[in-house]
């Protein structure tokens, strides 16, 4: 067993005010969870350098990070619950299903290799019934599609020759499930005169942390840090389209590893829209955007909120002439990465998702915009509206503008 006497003493600052528990999506729908205050700072205070106390209820923590946002004292609540998860997984062992779910990357490689079969199989009732019985993955749960022509297969550029250099951390979702997001990002960068490089990378570790596989997650973290620092030290910026991967780079790596390298990397990490907003402020943003008369509802993923950078997606999409975007102001979607795929958590996942689905239904919007692939999965399960990544919308506007200017130019 790992040594869990990691020296995070942020629990010292806890005033027991319960703000974290009051804003915890799980605590809001279930009394079965002990709540972030108890399972985070409280338990850590009782066990730091003392006998371990394992609390099974920690399985219900989704690591959404809302506790950290709400804490007035800057207690690293979700770091402490992440370690409680790791301790629990070490003591109780990890289920086969959780091994599978936490290995999003391995699953991605395998599933996309047989994509047509995987996708078809995932919609077959008997297959799903077997999955429920054997793995404990509920048959009703929608799954993201896998793509044979994944992003890794088609984009192999590892260096950038432009003035601004972007190293793109694609993440498992945009690699295996939604390569169109990655394509759009490359397109958007191209319109801004930036060539995108894709460095060597492994799954960011978020699904591992969420399943208590801290050691494995940290191994990936170290791999990514080493690989990406090679780029940042040559003047590259690290840009991501997945809010959970970004959240890991900006916060989790720092809190879990507490290393100088993690701190160094975080300084160069940007969410894609945040990066564009920075370009805009620097006067480098390409504003040649074709008008779009769409009405969109923006759904902010928890890991977006947790970065504390406002709503860069709305800031950027708001630059498209005629484009109307409003924040649907909904809380957690309830999918919470691998959480919502688990049979015993399905009911809670649906309960959390209820207010989100109501907010989406109430919003006067044609479709929903969100960055997170997992939120998209829940949105697709619980709402009737289409879901797009901000990069897809932006790419569309750029391309449209280019086409229009080609048509408009004299022959």
């Amino acid at each position, binding site marked *: 067993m790992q040594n869990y*006497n990691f*020296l995070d*003493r942020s*629990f*010292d*600052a*806890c*005033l*027991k*005010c*319960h703000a974290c528990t009051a804003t915890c999506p799980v605590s809001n729908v279930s009394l079965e969870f*002990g709540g972030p*205050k*108890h399972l985070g700072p*409280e*338990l850590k*205070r*009782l066990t*730091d*350098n*003392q*006998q371990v*106390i*394992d*609390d*099974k209820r920690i399985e219900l923590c989704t690591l959404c990070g809302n506790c950290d946002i709400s804490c007035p*004292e800057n207690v690293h609540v979700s770091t402490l619950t992440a370690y409680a998860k790791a301790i629990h997984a070490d003591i109780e062992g990890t289920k086969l299903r959780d091994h599978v779910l936490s290995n999003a990357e391995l699953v991605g490689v395998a599933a996309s290799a047989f994509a047509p079969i995987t996708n078809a199989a995932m919609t077959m009732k008997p297959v799903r019934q077997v999955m429920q019985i054997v793995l404990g993955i509920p048959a009703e749960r929608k799954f993201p599609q896998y793509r044979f022509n994944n992003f890794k297969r088609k984009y192999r550029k590892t260096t950038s020759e432009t003035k601004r250099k972007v190293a793109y951390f694609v993440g498992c979702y945009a690699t295996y499930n939604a390569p169109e997001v990655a394509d759009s990002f490359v397109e958007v960068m191209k319109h801004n005169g930036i060539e995108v490089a894709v460095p060597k990378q492994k799954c960011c570790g978020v699904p591992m942390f969420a399943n208590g596989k801290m050691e494995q997650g940290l191994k990936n973290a170290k791999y990514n840090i080493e690989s990406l620092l090679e780029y940042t030290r040559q003047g590259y910026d690290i840009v991501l389209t997945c809010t959970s991967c970004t959240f890991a780079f900006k916060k989790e790596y720092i809190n879990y590893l507490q290393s100088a390298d993690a701190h160094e990397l975080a300084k160069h990490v940007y969410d894609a829209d945040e990066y564009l907003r920075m370009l805009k402020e620097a006067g480098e943003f390409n504003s040649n955007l074709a008008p779009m008369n769409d009405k969109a509802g923006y759904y902010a993923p928890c890991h977006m909120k947790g970065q504390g950078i406002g709503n860069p997606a709305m800031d950027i999409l708001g630059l498209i002439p005629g484009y109307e975007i409003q924040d649907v102001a909904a809380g957690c979607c309830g999918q919470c990465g691998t959480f919502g795929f688990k049979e015993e958590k399905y009911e809670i996942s649906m309960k959390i998702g209820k207010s989100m689905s109501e907010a989406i239904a109430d919003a006067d919007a044609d479709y929903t915009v969100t960055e997170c692939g997992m939120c998209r999965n829940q949105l697709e399960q619980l709402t009737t509206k289409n879901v797009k990544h901000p990069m897809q919308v932006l790419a569309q506007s750029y391309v449209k503008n280019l086409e229009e200017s080609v048509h408009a130019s004299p022959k």
Partner: protein
Amino acid sequence: MRRKIETQVIVIGGGVTGAGVLRDLAVRGIKAILVEQRDLGHGTSSRNHGLLHSGGRYAVRDEEAAIESYRENIILKKTVPGSIEQTGGLFVKVPEDDDDYVQKWVSACEKVGIPVKNIPLEQAFKDEPYLSKKIQAVYSVPDGSVDCFTLVVDVVADAVTRGARALTYHEVIEIIRETNGVSGVLVRNRYTGEEIEVRGDIVINAAGPWGANLAEMAGISLHLINNKGMLAVLNHRFNRQVINRLRIPGDADIFVPAHNVTIFGTTGVNVDDPNDFSLDRQELEMMLEEGAALIPDLLNMRLIRAFSGSRPLYQESTVADTSGRSVTRGIALLDHKQRDGVDGFITITGGKLTTFRYMAEKTVDIVCEKLNIAARCTTDEEIVPHREAQSFFKEVDMAPAAKHKLFHWAGTKAEKIEQSLKQRPIDRTVICECEQVTWAEIESTLTEDSPFNLGDIRRRTRLGMGPCQGTFCSYRAAAVAVEKDAATSEQAAWALNDALNERKKGMTVVATGETAKQAQLMEAIYNVSLRLKEGANQHV
């Protein structure tokens, strides 16, 4: 008509000394009654480190105290297992301290027979990651950690099951004098004002720092030095073992792990008034600076409160020594018949927490001699019921942390607590989250004859002893008590005021940073949100 109680021996003082005497009397079959001005352990017995000395601290300078400590250390581990955690202890040498003292200390310990073992530094850092990286040598000793609250409560409870009586919240207002001696005491109930006359053959003054006042009531002049020490409670139990500084005993050189906190101290300043529990910020800051030599992180650790208590040190003549450290920690057993010609009055004072049983033995030996009773002391063998309850609560569906606490706390009440936990969900509710105290535990401490008092509950359950200092659990406990008819709403309001005032006292002196915010949050909840009227019906 005043109520009268007849007994053989009256013990004044519900601290550990009085408790030990009461139990020894009961074990030897002597009828006895203990009177205490407030709750058990109100004075010095709950205002100390809770260190079960191995004797190491006294080995160089006070061999007798060292020998007594080590012998009693072994006896207490066996006879009051429920209140002692066998943590072990370390003596740690830092560069600032005298190199020669180390060998002197090791030899002195060997001479006394205290088992001392040299610990490799890597091992010490592994066990105690908060130790200064500059330390030069580490030795282990068989120190332990004592829960002073449960110790006094359990020792008295055991005496009571053996036929003794205890009257808490009964203050002695008069010592009844006869021509040649004393024949009893007059006590007044602090809650009701009722006066009771307690008559007996022998009155034992075990009143600690109040001892001189009591002696004066009997017309006896007694010189006690009340040496006040300050202690600070750290937000978490960062150490596994007791950590002592390896040098000539001084200020701020002991860290004792106590349940979920660490108690750090102490200082020594002579004071006149035994009720002087004042706390000084400057004294605290000096302590922290000194303590940082062993634990550098100390300066960043959150302090949740501070407290002070007085060591009652006895000496026959007045000597100017304001630090009080050179006065012996030895036991003073005074037969006032011999000393002052007052029959039936004995004072037992001085000594240490670790030697309380031995003090009681010596005292009761004199009592037996006076009463012509041939019973031999057996408290070195007779065991006070343990508090371990590992075989209970297995099937109770409750927070593992709360269960963990019950395993080491429930003791003789385990069966009753388990039943109520199983039967009623509200009893499983964790009322005090910092220290993981359920309502079932709170309820198990309530008695018919004493009013609802959060301080009494706190000393028995640890309710409100954590970082929030009762910000949340005080009102919860009071509300459930009213709901369950354990208190009227008027009693609950009084209890809340009483508890909050007491908590604030200890928080104020450490109130920088988080604890200042905590105090403000507490203030806001009680005085703004709940609009608790201050000072309502303050009668204790």
